[in-house]
């Protein structure tokens, strides 16, 4: 609340500071947590219109935001472990007007004077420029001199000029899945660690040089890690094999279809900087001739005729209903005395199926709405 209230107190944002390092378009970020630990990052500048909130988003820190202020923008409730769990708690839960008032105070660095300036506006309303430094600190924030300022770190320290590494060396990449093959419905962790990294993307999305993703693919999936640095662009592929539950390939199928259960760890430094599309297979894959993956999967599918019937039973409700109804009609034919109970069964079954597909809440809502309409129709004639 304070943050948004103060948004109208200070309106000027100081002179636009440009500390553009040659050829770099970046923004520095300093985050100070309640335990005194400090997170720093150097974020790529995405262009005019980039806001302080975008900078925080791209840092990869876990955030909880409150969007209920409408056009005022988002309020930052929590960064990593510090803050309030909106919407279970109020976004500024530690600032109730009675006693200490702690929240994520938002600053930007005045680089000419070397001081943090408490931002007069929320992070969504504050646009940044390349070379700016943004600061966040958890504690009692105040306009004009706050006791929880983030430590003073200059842009040059946060985002050192890339000329510091003169010789372009190819990246050193570790890209692995643990486990490398799973059954359908299970999950795996994809880890990567890139040294000498410039820009790292995983399946087209920008990621940190060293991170992991927890994935639960339904089908065999290939992950592509592209590393772009001064030495060139490098591509690495990792495939997670997903075994379909009952679809055991017959022995005559290609042996490569049987996935390995040990994680594939690869440490690769490609020979030529211009080479792209280097495929890194899991290390423990058999020494069989490298069959293209999609074909293997397709073969495994066609090799098992049981898949079709299995899918049919997997669809569950509609099929089940038909099945149960069929048995019910059979009972009716053999024993007409049970007709009434069968009718009840059918209603219960329909209710069950309805509750299953719509959810009990939606059913209750529909029931209450129908009840209200009935009351209206009855009362309308009366009054």
């Amino acid at each position, binding site marked *: 609340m304070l943050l948004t209230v103060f948004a109208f107190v200070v309106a000027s944002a100081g002179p636009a500071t440009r500390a553009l390092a040659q050829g770099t378009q970046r923004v520095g970020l300093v985050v100070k947590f309640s335990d005194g630990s400090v997170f720093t990052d150097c974020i790529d500048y995405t262009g005019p219109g980039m806001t302080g909130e975008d900078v925080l988003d791209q840092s990869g820190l876990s955030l909880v935001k409150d969007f209920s202020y409408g056009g005022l923008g988002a309020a930052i409730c929590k960064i990593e472990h510090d803050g309030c769990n909106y919407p279970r708690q109020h976004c500024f839960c530690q600032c109730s007007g009675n006693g200490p008032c702690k929240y994520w105070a938002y600053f930007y660095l005045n680089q000419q004077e070397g001081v943090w300036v408490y931002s007069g506006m929320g992070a969504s309303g504050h646009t940044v420029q390349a070379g700016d430094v943004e600061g966040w600190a958890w504690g009692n924030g105040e306009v004009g001199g706050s006791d929880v300022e983030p430590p003073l770190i200059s842009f040059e320290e946060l985002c050192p000029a890339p000329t510091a590494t003169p010789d372009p060396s190819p990246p050193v990449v570790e890209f692995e899945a643990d486990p490398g093959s799973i059954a359908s419905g299970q999950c795996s962790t994809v880890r990567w660690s890139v040294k000498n990294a410039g820009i790292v993307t995983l399946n087209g999305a920008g990621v940190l040089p060293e991170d992991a993703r927890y994935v639960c693919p339904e089908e065999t999936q290939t992950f592509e890690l592209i590393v772009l640095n001064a030495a060139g662009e490098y591509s690495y592929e990792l495939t997670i094999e997903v075994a379909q539950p009952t679809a055991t390939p017959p022995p005559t199928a290609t042996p490569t279809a049987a996935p390995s259960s040990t994680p594939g760890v690869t440490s690769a430094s490609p020979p030529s900087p211009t080479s792209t599309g280097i495929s890194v297979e899991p290390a423990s894959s058999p020494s069989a001739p490298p069959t293209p993956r999609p074909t293997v999967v397709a073969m495994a599918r066609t090799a098992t005729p049981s898949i079709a019937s299995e899918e049919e039973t997997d669809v569950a409700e509609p099929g089940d209903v038909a099945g149960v109804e069929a048995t019910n009609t059979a009972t009716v034919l053999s024993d007409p005395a049970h007709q009434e109970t069968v009718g009840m069964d059918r209603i219960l079954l329909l209710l069950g199926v309805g509750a299953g597909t719509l959810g009990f809440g939606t059913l209750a809502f529909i029931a209450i709405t129908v009840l209200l309409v009935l009351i209206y129709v009855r*009362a309308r004639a009366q009054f």
Partner: protein
Amino acid sequence: MYHTVTWMLWLFAALLPAMLTRNPLYLATLLLAVAVAYNTIGRLSPMASSWGVFLKAGLILATLSVLFNLLTVHYGDTVMFTLPRLTLHLGRLAILDLGGQTTLESLAYGLTSGLSLVAILLIFATFNVLVDHHRLLRRTPAFLYQTGMITSIAVAFVPQMVSSLQEIREAQAIRGHRFRGIRNLLPLFVPLLTTGLERAIQLAESMEARGFGSVSTSRSKGRQTLQRVLIATALFGLLAAAFARSYYSSVPLASVLLALGSAALLVGTLMAIGRGVKRSRYHRELWRRRDTLVSIACFTSCAITAGFWLRNPNALFFYPYPRFSLPDFNAVIGLALLAVVTPVLAAPKMRRHNSD
């Protein structure tokens, strides 16, 4: 038809969920229940025709809320379409940021806010139509008599104006006047203005004739001044107590004592003023069995809503960001909302247009 206290309880039972919940399903149920109450018992009132105006006003408010939210909020994962973005900057401060990514979440949030506004508006509209203003006025505490009188006149003003607007419109239409543009509205507003002024003068004269605003002889000038000073002191004491509670929380007892003392002083003074106002009663309202039934239903509904709000606030909450999911619906809360239609169910059997 019902006791005024019953209607006040009804208002509370309808307003409490409307204020507490942000869940569109509960709000929709509540809205439907209020609409049922209005279109059944509400039609017995001569002011019932103002429904359409309230509904229109509510829909305009809701549309504005949805549009405002859609255009200014760009959060949410489900992007429906992208509009051209218009941003106005004042230095580095983005003072206006319209368009851009339009998300399903911002639509859901805008709709929920709009629904909440419409629900509150229609609850008051229905209460206005259902309750007898003169009886309501008689229920106000003695010291509030003058304020209550003025409030009840103000509350009755809008429906009265709407009905006289319709009358004038009909009369002009019979004379062959057609309302096409803004210029044609003049023959509508001039009579409305004169009728309004006439009514105001009539009201003032009749109130004066009944001795409204006259000071009773028992209250001397000095006593009046003393009462005013005491009220001001008590209010200042309450303010000081609130201030002390916020800024000197280390000594909680002092603020509590100050608040209690000030409140006692305020109540005492107001009661002393109220004793000076004498009101006669010609007609005593009857508390019937149906009043008991409706009151019990309303009270239970309030208890259930308040219970959920205190124990499990998540059940009442709905927050579409960052990714939209359908809101939950708890059947217990849904049933509690049905208390709003109990006056319809418990009403005595009657023929059409035959008011109690």
